[in-house]
């Protein structure tokens, strides 16, 4: 087994990986950009190395700097986490050439699955259904126009090298095609340094359901059931579940069998996720395979008890899977909510800033994965996720009610968050019924108990007035000076506050 692993990532996933390393007795080396010196993953690691300035392209995407840090630390392997270089076949190859184990599938498998054209071809060859769309990556608008003729609108333009929801646009009619193409190209180039695109049929009322697989180098492939990931905003998942409320035993059998065929098609190794689109008639289509650990892997861990990162590391070290298919059993239900520093009332725009107050939930059936702490500043350079909050219950309703409870326990002050939106969603009639699709959040109805709130608002005003009164002699509000003086008889407050 490895003695030391370098984690080429930041935030909660870097810490998640380090936790398992520690449980396996493996030392950990972190890398950090200059903007991340105070970040939790640096504190959490056994060692940490600076790899460059704040912009990801100069640090977390700088493969040479990362490999240099790995050499310096004496690490034998590199875990890429998700995002950044996790699906870069070039990076996997560079690691290999430098004598370092890349914890993930081989460069050639990443290449094949990362290239949507090759992936689609492999899937079609192995009997896995795919979405109607362009077979090759497209570079200019004429090609896009040509390919779009065979697909009924609405359709979608996606970055050919994309992932994580970046670089995607829905096109409802011919007239919108050109502008959407230009926007996706720009985003695709900025994010992945590859401006090519890909078009496909768009299903307005579809679910996003994915299957977790694990494979080792001696040909064992197992699945760990499905995850429901339909609740998204800006094409990024916000709430995920394991299992899916829509998947019955028959569909589960079909989806997991297709996922195993997909993994076998490319002789996959390590942890991977086969993503499917499921339409209103429960027909499913292969979307893509993510050749890395997913953000939402925690719900699968909660339900199966399998430590997916541990299995990744075992497989990368040449060991066989630590568990066989028959021993992987669905136990209960898990839901995950992603807590973001963003403003749901303003197009989910990220809201960087200092976290002035932070409290995470505790107690039975909850798991928190976070990379932040009170006093830390959410940076504008990286993903504004504050935490993943997961709950477990014996059934979906228990997990859901527990999630409402634990979200109530969350406190984040100093930045705007999607906490209220998550709370509303968990209580939404459609969510309760498991009636989800990828447009859910656009339609979520806001429940609220205004009476209670009204009462609290008044009290809040009063308490602030009392605090203000306690601070005699401070003329913070000059037009109000007379009042401050009069209020000084309430000086006792200054002792209490």
């Amino acid at each position, binding site marked *: 087994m490895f003695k030391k692993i370098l984690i080429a990532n930041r935030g909660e996933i870097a810490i998640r990986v380090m936790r398992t390393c520690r449980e396996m007795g493996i030392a950990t080396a972190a890398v950090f950009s200059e903007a991340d010196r105070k970040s939790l993953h640096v504190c959490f690691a056994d060692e940490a190395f600076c790899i460059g300035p704040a912009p990801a392209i100069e640090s977390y995407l700088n493969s040479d700097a990362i490999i240099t840090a790995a050499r310096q630390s004496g690490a034998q392997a590199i875990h890429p986490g998700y995002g950044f270089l996790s699906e870069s076949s070039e990076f996997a190859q560079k690691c290999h050439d430098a004598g370092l184990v890349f914890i993930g599938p081989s460069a050639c498998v990443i290449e094949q699955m990362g290239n949507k054209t090759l992936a689609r071809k492999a899937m079609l060859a192995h009997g896995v259904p795919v979405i109607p769309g362009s077979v090759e990556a497209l570079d200019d608008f004429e090609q896009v126009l040509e390919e779009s003729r065979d697909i009924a609108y609405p359709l979608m333009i996606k970055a050919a090298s994309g992932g994580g929801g970046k670089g995607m646009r829905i096109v409802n009619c011919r007239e919108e095609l050109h502008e959407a193409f230009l926007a996706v190209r720009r985003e695709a180039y900025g994010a992945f340094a590859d401006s090519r695109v890909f078009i496909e049929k768009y299903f307005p009322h579809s679910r996003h359901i994915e299957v977790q697989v694990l494979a080792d180098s001696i040909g064992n492939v197992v699945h760990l059931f499905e995850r429901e990931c339909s609740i998204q905003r*800006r094409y990024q998942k916000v709430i995920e579940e394991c299992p899916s409320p829509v998947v019955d035993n028959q569909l589960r059998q079909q989806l997991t069998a297709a996922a195993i065929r997909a993994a076998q098609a490319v002789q996959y190794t390590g942890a991977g996720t086969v993503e499917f689109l499921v339409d209103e008639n429960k027909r499913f289509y292969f979307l893509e395979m993510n050749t890395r650990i997913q953000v939402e892997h925690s719900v699968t861990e909660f339900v199966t008890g399998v430590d997916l990162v541990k299995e990744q590391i075992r497989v990368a070290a040449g060991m066989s899977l630590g568990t066989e298919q028959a021993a992987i059993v669905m136990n209960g239900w898990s839901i995950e909510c992603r807590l973001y520093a963003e403003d749901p009332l303003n197009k989910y725009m990220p809201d960087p800033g200092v976290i002035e107050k932070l409290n995470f939930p505790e107690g039975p059936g909850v798991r928190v994965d976070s990379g932040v702490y009170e006093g830390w500043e959410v940076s504008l350079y990286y993903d504004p996720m504050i935490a993943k909050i997961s709950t477990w219950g014996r059934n979906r309703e228990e997990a859901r009610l527990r999630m409402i409870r634990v979200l109530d326990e969350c406190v984040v002050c100093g930045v705007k968050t999607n906490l209220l939106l998550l709370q509303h969603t968990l209580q939404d009639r459609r969510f309760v019924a498991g009636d989800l699709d990828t447009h859910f959040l656009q339609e979520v109805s806001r429940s609220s108990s205004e009476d209670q709130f009204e009462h609290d608002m008044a009290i*809040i005003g009063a308490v602030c007035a009392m605090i203000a009164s306690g601070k005699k002699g401070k003329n913070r509000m000059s037009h109000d000076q007379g009042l401050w003086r009069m209020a000084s008889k309430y000086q006792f407050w200054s002792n209490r506050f």
Partner: protein
Amino acid sequence: MKRQAKVENKIYSVEFQKRNGKVEVIIDNRCYLVDSSTINNGSFSLLIDGASRVIFVKDRGDHFSVALGGKNIDVRFYDPRALRSVDEMQSSLKQSRQIILAPMAGRIVRLQVRLGDMVSDGAGLVVLEAMKMENELKSQAVGCIKEIFVSENEVVIPGQQLMVIE
């Protein structure tokens, strides 16, 4: 002695006095017995006629930011003598002049309006790229573009004035 507290968009008349170690608070003629206690670092535990609430209060100079159960609420005080009535104050809150600020650091990808354009409520004004996403800033009211302070490709910092609508 009464004070006027604006909590979010509503104005309350607030009065309080000490009574047996607790505080009697009168808000818009309703009376509450409040027991308040510091917890840590800006947090207060309140018992309001027995009901338990924890609030986090941050003094921002001209107003307070208060967090309660996932909600963030702004509180401001006004001198009652400076305003003839609460109604008058309520109406004074509506701004006729709208200043568009950058909500975060980023790069101006595209200006969607020009000086002198009339815009409707919800109209797109400017596209800002930040964290690899394009974000469209919209007008919150009907008005005319009076000033534009930035140009395309310019990098802006949070809070920077982008344009003025009247």
